[in-house]
């Protein structure tokens, strides 16, 4: 019975997400709708629970599950008159069908194996038990979403009025959603929280596939790209070893980027609204989400400018920003955290204070991690080749916007790992791959668009 309730607690918000997208964005490819719907359903519910504050968990199952069932029914009823308008999948030549079948079989096997592990293994990896699942487990046993405080504050609180974790300041959308799943069962088991990760892995693949199909890629090319993404060892590891937030953030970044820069036939105000909603969700998943949201927003603002202004603004932005950086310093807002100050040789961060910006010799370990250790399959070998082969297509505004976002992310990661004390996290491999992971789905989207047959992209690039 407990497992049935947990599965319902997982499926109902996902169904609400899928049905809401069918209602509001009937032009989405069905795969996009499934992938994005799952992601949005889980994250929006997590945020609603976060906004609800210190509510008890006891009544959550009794009230929440019927409410979500009603909402799903209402959304289904409202959307009944709008049959999905996704393009029918044309049966390609036999060789294409064989490729699609082969990739799907491989993904099916990997998905089953990841699910088995997510459900059979205990919470095994460090940040899962120390950060992301610590809050939900504490809340479950406290019986309510009690405040979670840093140690110093917790020590000065009356016993029992709060809980403490090392990651007290981390966003709570994901921990609240994990608590919701366990609350549906009425008790804590690691597997109740883990269950959300393997479907998220599948949702990421569906989202990637659906978005590429919306860009008119052939089914075989889209499924190969999505399969390549899902079989990157980093992504398979995060689906199997549930409990980290990186897979969620990576999926949400892809949803935001692919919505903001959707191809012309699909671009519409609901699509842009979906992009902006995804942007808003990013900081509620992980703190780094704020940085990606700011970069996506900047790329989108640039993309919305008239073409004659676009490149001039970009160049002016780089010149002015660079000039301020090397002279008086550059101050950027980090919503929810404060202001980040950047000056030649120095950065000022809200939590860490002033840190020296100087070159750190981590190039060797970074290269080893990207090219030799089996973290990324052939991705970083293929990326420069694809950029070279498809450089003409980078001029298409939507593709250029994706590339500018990735350039910004590259700059962010580069400065972080090569110029700040965070280089230690590259040296010991704790964060390097996980931060890259956040933007890898967008890399796969970009590379697939660059390598796709020209006709598929050119016609929709304006």
């Amino acid at each position, binding site marked *: 019975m407990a497992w049935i309730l947990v599965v319902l607690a997982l499926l109902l918000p996902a169904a609400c997400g899928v049905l809401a997208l069918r209602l509001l964005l009937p032009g989405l490819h069905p795969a996009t709708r499934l992938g994005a719907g799952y992601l949005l359903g889980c994250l929006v519910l997590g945020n609603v629970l976060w906004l609800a504050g210190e509510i008890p968990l006891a009544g959550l199952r009794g009230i929440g599950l019927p409410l979500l069932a009603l909402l799903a029914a209402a959304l289904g009823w409202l959307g009944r008159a709008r049959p999905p308008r996704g393009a029918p999948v044309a049966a390609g030549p036999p060789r294409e069908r064989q490729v699609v079948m082969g990739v799907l079989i491989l993904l099916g096997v990997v998905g089953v194996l990841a699910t088995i592990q997510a459900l059979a293994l205990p919470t*095994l*990896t*460090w940040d899962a*038990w120390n950060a992301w699942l610590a809050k939900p487990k504490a809340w479950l046993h406290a019986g309510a979403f009690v405040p979670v405080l840093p140690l110093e504050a917790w*020590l000065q609180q009356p016993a029992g009025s709060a809980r403490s974790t090392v990651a007290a300041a981390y966003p709570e959308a994901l921990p609240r959603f994990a608590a919701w799943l366990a609350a549906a069962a009425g008790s804590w088991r690691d597997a109740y929280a883990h269950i959300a990760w393997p479907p998220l892995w599948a949702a990421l693949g569906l989202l990637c596939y659906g978005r590429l199909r919306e860009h008119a890629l052939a089914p075989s090319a889209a499924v190969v790209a999505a399969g390549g993404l899902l*079989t990157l060892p980093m992504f398979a590891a995060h689906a199997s070893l549930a409990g980290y937030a*990186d897979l969620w953030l990576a999926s949400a970044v892809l949803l935001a980027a692919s919505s903001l820069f959707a191809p012309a036939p699909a671009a519409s105000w609901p699509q842009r609204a979906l992009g902006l909603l995804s942007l808003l969700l990013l900081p509620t998943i992980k703190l780094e989400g704020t940085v990606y949201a700011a970069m996506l927003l900047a790329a989108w603002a640039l993309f919305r400018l008239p073409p004659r202004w676009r490149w001039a603004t970009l160049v002016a932005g780089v010149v002015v920003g660079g000039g301020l950086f090397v002279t008086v310093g550059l101050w950027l807002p980090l919503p929810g955290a404060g202001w980040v100050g950047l000056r030649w040789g120095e950065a000022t961060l809200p939590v860490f204070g002033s840190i020296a910006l100087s070159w750190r010799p981590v190039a060797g370990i970074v290269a080893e991690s990207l090219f*030799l250790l089996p973290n990324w399959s*052939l991705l970083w070998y293929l990326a420069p080749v694809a950029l070279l082969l498809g450089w003409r297509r980078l001029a298409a505004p939507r593709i250029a916007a994706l590339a500018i976002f990735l350039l910004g992310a590259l700059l962010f990661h580069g400065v972080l790992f090569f110029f700040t004390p965070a280089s230690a996290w590259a040296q010991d491999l*704790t964060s390097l791959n996980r931060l890259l992971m956040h933007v890898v789905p967008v890399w796969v989207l970009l590379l697939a668009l660059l390598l796709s047959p020209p006709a598929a992209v050119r016609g929709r690039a304006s």
Partner: protein
Amino acid sequence: MSAAGVLRFGLLVLGAAVLLVLFAGWRPGMPWQPQRVLEIDPLRWQGQGATVRRDGDAVHVSGATAEGASLIVQALSAFDTADYRYLQLRTTGPDGDRRGYLLLQTESGNRSIQLPGHPAGALSVDLGAQKDWQGRVQALGLVMQPTDYIAGHLAPAPHYVLGAMRFESANLRAALAALADRWYAYRPWNGRSNHTGGFEHGADPGPSLQGFVAALLGWWIVLLWATRHPRRMQAARAAVLAGVAVLAIQLGGQLALRAAVAVSSARLAAGHPEWPPSAMPAMANEAAGLLDDWASAPPPRVLVWGNDNFTREYPVWLLRAHNVAWLVVPAQLSLLAQPEPGSVLVLGGRSGWTYDPARGELQLGETRLPAQPRQQGAWLHVFAIGAQGATP
């Protein structure tokens, strides 16, 4: 197939062979067969916590210690590790969820080397790539033990047959076999596997399958262009797809082995709530005991400290059912002005602290505080902390 096609294919095969040999660590002068071989005498194995029965040249090993380890040892005429580079081992029978270790007794201490993959079958290990393969070996051991996720005693006692075991000097045949074992043998998850896709194994540099596939693809693409293949772009795409598939299949194989171990561990732990699967079963068992003890009268506040990150932080996860937190440094105890009656301090591990029973005082680094011992385990030590708090 056209002449150009035959040439292209021949050069591809030749390139693959050259790359394999290079990735296997070939150096000029390395022979195909070993010049020195040290056969390990199967009749001299002795069991420690395991029973050894000899059957011709094979050794049947059964049983294990209370911790689930099945250990056999033998003393031998000392040999220099510099004379040998590869271990060749053949076993049948040990369960797939056991891991094997080669133990070495040398003049400078005992060392252990984890064997790659499932210990069943034929195995080649490049010992020369291991930092612990050094010195003069005086005695050998071989231990099979259960996975990390479950308590050793939950696993059924192993039974396996140890066939041939020998050390070989550097030779290409063993190098290629060791390369294959390294690329495709089982690698268990660990607590850091989300950071690197589960393959990192610390600073364990070895020949990279990624690098090999990328190099071979590069060679193939050069051949396509050099021989003016009529559909070279299409052929290059297909080759990339094949390369990605090779790596995806390697991933699938790893996931299959890991899933099998996960299921086996969960099955063995089922019905033993006092021994839950965890990152450290022995500590989890003690934590389960504390949770039982505290069920009727939960301590209002549980503080945890340990002298290293794991013993400081992991007990908090295990004791999350209570109002628990870990101290970064013991001096933070001074922030707790008045511990509530019944509050406890849990110390993980045995290092970094001392207790003076005569004075009823606990010392953690520079911090002293009145405390009374409540439970003492191998990993978790519980003290009731005094009403007056810590005195830094």
